[in-house]
């Protein structure tokens, strides 16, 4: 009796997954009855709300990747650096204060980061002499990178802390410096967890919405130029969903087609991470 009731609670998350799959793919299939999958995946113009409709998703994917690349360039090196410091150099008490403080970065609501990117970072990029537009991929990407630092740092640090002390002591006994122990022993030994942290960070960047909606613009753009405005998949979904598109219209169904594309992309990224982790995992006794 109790077990059945508790099992029912557990079923909620199964129902959520099923719900997501059905909610995304059923309307997406209907969409692809009206627009050919080939035009969608290979088309280079995205204009679903214009009179002359066009449904090529590539500009949205380029926009998403453009922002994600800048976010990764910030978050991966800085997150890894922070993790090495916390795991190998910081004393326990310093780590106990720094780690929650760093995680505060991940707790700031994304709309606040969006505000910051639009009203502080972009003007400062301009005054630094960069020819950026009011909306641009660079400022959204940089701020998103800062937001993801704790994700990368925290998971990488966990992986490094799990490397057995003996490996470090062995390397020290052979005359290694702390730098050598960190970069040649600990990081390689923890590489599966570190890569998983990178990939999780990237997958968060792909799906992040508010920063790009506010700071990167809503203009489909087939360009990797970081100074230009782009529209990401997530920004398109939010902007179109917020508007009053009539249920059942092609415009309405684009939300689901793009949502399904985003969902599949994050799934692939996550699957790659699981594969990598499995491949390079070191098993210690």
């Amino acid at each position, binding site marked *: 009796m*109790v*077990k059945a009731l*508790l*099992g*029912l*609670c*557990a079923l*909620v*998350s*199964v129902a*959520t*997954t099923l719900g*997501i799959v059905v*909610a*995304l793919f059923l*309307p997406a299939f209907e969409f692809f009855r009206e627009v050919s999958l080939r035009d969608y995946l290979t088309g280079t113009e995205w204009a679903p709300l214009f009179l002359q409709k066009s449904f090529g998703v590539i500009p949205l994917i380029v926009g998403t990747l453009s922002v994600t690349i800048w976010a990764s360039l*910030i978050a991966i090196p*800085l*997150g890894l*650096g*922070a993790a*090495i*410091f916390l795991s190998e*150099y910081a004393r326990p008490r310093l780590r106990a204060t*720094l780690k929650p403080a*760093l995680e*505060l*970065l991940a*707790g*700031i*609501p*994304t*709309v*606040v980061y*969006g*505000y*910051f990117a*639009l*009203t*502080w970072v972009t003007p400062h990029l301009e005054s630094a002499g960069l020819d950026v537009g009011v909306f641009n991929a660079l400022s959204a990407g940089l*701020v998103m990178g*800062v937001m993801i630092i*704790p994700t990368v740092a925290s998971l990488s640090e966990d992986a490094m802390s799990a490397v057995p002390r003996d490996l470090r002591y062995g390397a020290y006994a052979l005359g290694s410096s*702390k730098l050598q122990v960190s970069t040649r022993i600990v990081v390689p030994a923890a590489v599966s967890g570190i890569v998983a942290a990178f990939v*999780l960070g990237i997958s968060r960047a792909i*799906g992040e*919405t*508010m920063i790009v*909606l*506010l700071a990167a613009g809503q203009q489909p753009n087939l360009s990797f130029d970081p100074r230009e405005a782009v529209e990401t998949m*997530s920004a398109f*979904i*939010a902007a179109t*969903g*917020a508007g009053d598109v009539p*249920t059942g219209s092609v415009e309405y169904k684009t939300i*689901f087609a793009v*949502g399904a594309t*985003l969902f599949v992309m*994050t799934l692939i990224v996550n699957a790659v991470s699981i594969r990598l982790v499995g491949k390079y995992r070191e098993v210690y006794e």
Partner: protein
Amino acid sequence: MSIAAANVPLQSGRKRGVWRGRIFVALLVLSLLVGFVALGTLFFDVLSKGVAYVDPVLLTNSPSSDPAVAGARPALLATLYLGILLILFTVPIGVGTAIYLEEYANRDRWYNRLLELNIQNLAAVPSIVYGILGLAFLVRGLGLGRVLLAGALILTLLVLPTVIIAAREAIRAVPSSIREGAYALGATQWQVVWRQVLPAAIPGIATGSILALARAIGETAPLILIGALTFISFNPTAMGPFTALPVQIYNWTKLPDPEFKALAAAAIIVLLIMVLLLNAGAIWLRNRYQKRW
């Protein structure tokens, strides 16, 4: 002789090593600092622009096209209601799932392993996708409409995996000797869970739930999708249209008028105070009641 000759390159090599080590540490500290400097800049920027607008008008007035009298009362109230509903929905379902997985489920069964994998995967699904789920099923499918309850349900599903994972860790941390002791005294499985395991796991569960609440009240994208981006000048009800504080911030930030940007900064201060207080509360709770078995 030969020893001295061998010493020279060795020592200069060591010196180089020392410098390399110092530069390396400096780089590591720098990478940690970037995040903190960015956070500090953000706080300073928002405070300097918005603090003049944090006043009774902001807290008690309705939004308006005139920035001088515009406030965020409906959005604030809605965020409050969303938070209360969220806790009411999330905690029982999340803790129930965690108890099922930790205390009742047989790990060897394929469906229980699938359940665990499913929860891990759900935690990585972008929040905007939950918005799509809400739009398709709650707002249009069930015909619930663009109401506050739909928002609360979507936020519940969004943070449920986090709560489940936190609750499982808290339950797992209760040593099995406590369970075995209770069984030895003739307790049933439910009595063990209800009177021994759960009370011991409450601090961990509460910490996880508060962190989930802090995350949920800042969520914007899924609420925009289910229609929270509207002009609301009256107090929200569970079955009525709504807007929430982060959505109000988005709305004001988008407007070109710099006075509305300052209002957005003021609303951000209010939101950040709420989020930071919740985070601080969670950390305090964790440190205060953390048990070492």
